[in-house]
């Protein structure tokens, strides 16, 4: 009984921590600090997944935790740091929406996911239930980061934090098959994106990785 409540508390804290760090991403106005916060996000995810691996006695989840730690918390942020430096876009993030409204929207999204998931999963076991509510919050906040930023690098960061939410959900669903495979697949996907950003700039001499700057080339503008 003692053990049970401890395991519950720890996973609860870690998952809640992820939501909090997602919020921190919303108000970062510099790319470097956004990347640092993301690295922290991935670190907490790694801890959370490792804890789930221990609690559920599912050693394969340690692989997912290791991927989160090595790949997402170290390799990707370092690589993106370099890209940002080379592209010379380290000064600021142009946010499509102001910080105030973004934070309010973030709170609304978290409230929505809590209300939705807690109501819907009334019969599921409490651990999975709260995990799922937190995971959905992280997913939605990641989505919010993606919509409010226009810079390609910060959109990728938003996508990765969204994906962290998915991993949280998948590891929280006890005994779910394919979790490791899915996290590997996602890492490959992200590696592709990062390499893509890098190549676009270097080979094609783009003036900007700002997505809105590319809109004019579509030929459909009146």
């Amino acid at each position, binding site marked *: 009984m003692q053990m049970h409540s401890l395991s519950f508390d720890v996973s609860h804290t870690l998952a809640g921590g992820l939501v909090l760090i997602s919020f921190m991403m919303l108000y970062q106005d510099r790319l470097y600090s956004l990347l640092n916060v993301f690295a922290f996000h991935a670190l907490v995810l790694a801890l959370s997944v490792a804890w789930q691996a221990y609690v559920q006695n599912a050693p394969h989840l340690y692989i997912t935790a290791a991927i989160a730690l090595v790949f997402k918390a170290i390799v990707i942020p370092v690589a993106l740091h370099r890209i940002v430096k080379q592209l010379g876009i380290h000064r600021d993030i142009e946010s499509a929406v102001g910080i105030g409204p973004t934070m309010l929207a973030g709170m609304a999204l978290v409230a929505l996911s809590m209300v*939705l*998931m807690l*109501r*819907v*999963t*009334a*019969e*599921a076991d409490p651990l*999975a239930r709260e995990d*799922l509510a937190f*995971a*959905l919050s992280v*997913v939605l906040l990641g*989505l919010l980061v*993606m919509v409010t930023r226009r810079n*390609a690098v910060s*959109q990728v960061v938003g*996508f990765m934090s*969204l*994906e962290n939410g*998915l991993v949280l*959900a*998948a590891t929280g*669903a*006890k*005994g*779910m*098959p*394919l979790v490791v*495979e*899915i996290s590997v*697949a996602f890492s490959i*996907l992200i590696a*592709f*994106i990062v390499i*893509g950003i890098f190549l*676009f700039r270097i*080979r*094609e001499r*783009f003036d900007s990785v700002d*997505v809105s700057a*590319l*809109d004019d*080339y*579509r*030929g*459909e503008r009146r």
Partner: protein
Amino acid sequence: MNLHAFDPVAAVLLIPIGAAALLAILPGYRLTARLNVVASLATFLSALSLLVIERPQPTPYVLVDDLNIVFIVLNTFVGFTTSIFSASYIAHELEAGRLTPVYLRFYHAMYQTMMFGMNLAFVTNNIGLMWVAVEIATLTTVLMVGIYRTHAALEAAWKYFILGSVGIAFALFGTILVYMAARPVVGEGQDAMVWTLLVEHAAHFDPALLNVAFIFLFLGYGTKVGLAPLHAWLPDAHAEGPTPISAVLSGLLLNVALYALLRFKILLAVSPNAISPGPLMVTIGLVSLVFAAFMLYRRRDIKRLFAYSSIEHMGIIVFAFGMGGPLANFAGLLHMVMHSLTKSAIFYAVGHISQVKGTQRINRIRGLTVTHPALGWGLVVGVVAIAGLPPLGIFMSEFLVVSSTFARQPLLAIVLVFGLLLAFGALLLRLTSVAFGNPRGSTAPVEASYVPMFAHLSLVLVAGIYLPTPVVIWFQHVATLLG
């Protein structure tokens, strides 16, 4: 005994993946383009053999039933004809210097990998694996959309990628929720992701959880189907990539996502207390139809025009499946097949047209039937078909959708007919300017492969006049399966 050693399911998966590996290594355009065609033909023949060979029992990984055979056969057939078209299209691109041999190798390897992903999505019985397969198919198309590496192509690929990833993410979240709903009933682990087991037990799942799961799956896979308002990636991806890819995107990839949705729709239909997915699908389908119909009037790029037309038709199909019932499902299924055949035929024509004219702008292309009679008339027949004029196949399926809707929901039918007429007007307006009038643009002869285009169009024509009884019976059976 020896006959049983041939496993068509393994063949439709292994041939593409083996071919992809070979094509990635082999140099030379002539050889690889032929190999691509041969591999696609072999895949198609294996898929056809599914019709006659005794079906394998469903395992945790593989499922073959009446529903997915339709999809697999259609998929491999269009994959095969597109590979023929692709061979002549790519030859021109190489001459024009838009593609280098290295990219060509990459292109062919990706083409086969995409076929593998789509076939895997169809035959798998595991909803997790299905998700992975749809993701593979999407990613390969992203890479191919960006293959010209122009500003516009990269932007289209990026947009497709970002929106596709969000779709992927939502679909995965939905899949996890389905697993959560199934776990208490089916048991932990692999079994709770096996579709046949899920359907067996779905009646006992927590309906609330299943509802939320379906919303996420609908958003996720719906993005891939190109339903408004999640369609933003679709016109760009169609317009900027190589035209063979536009053909498979419209003709096949949208169907893959639709297939995934249908599987989950069946799952929800089994659960008595879950919401009925019908109203949601009907609404979004109508929104897509009417929205795309309006957008058709403002297109200036010929490939984007037909991309919006794909959104319109996916709207009709989703609407039909949303209405449900044997007749509407039958119509939806028929419409899906007809749309795939017609739209890819149109893209075959458009591909050669834009190559010979050197532009995709509609106002720079005129009088095609004078300068290039075969291409021009092919396009005319294709557009007449896609606009829904008799006696072609799409007329029949649209007629079925409309008449079955009038019988049940006259108000919805009015909206439906309004959207159809609107799209009809836009397409014919554009067609007259492109196909007739004084010729404009290059009149150079074109080395086109007409066979795939006219093969598709004649199939559509035949289906419009006379649908063979075995096909009707088959589709009727699938329609009842869809509930």
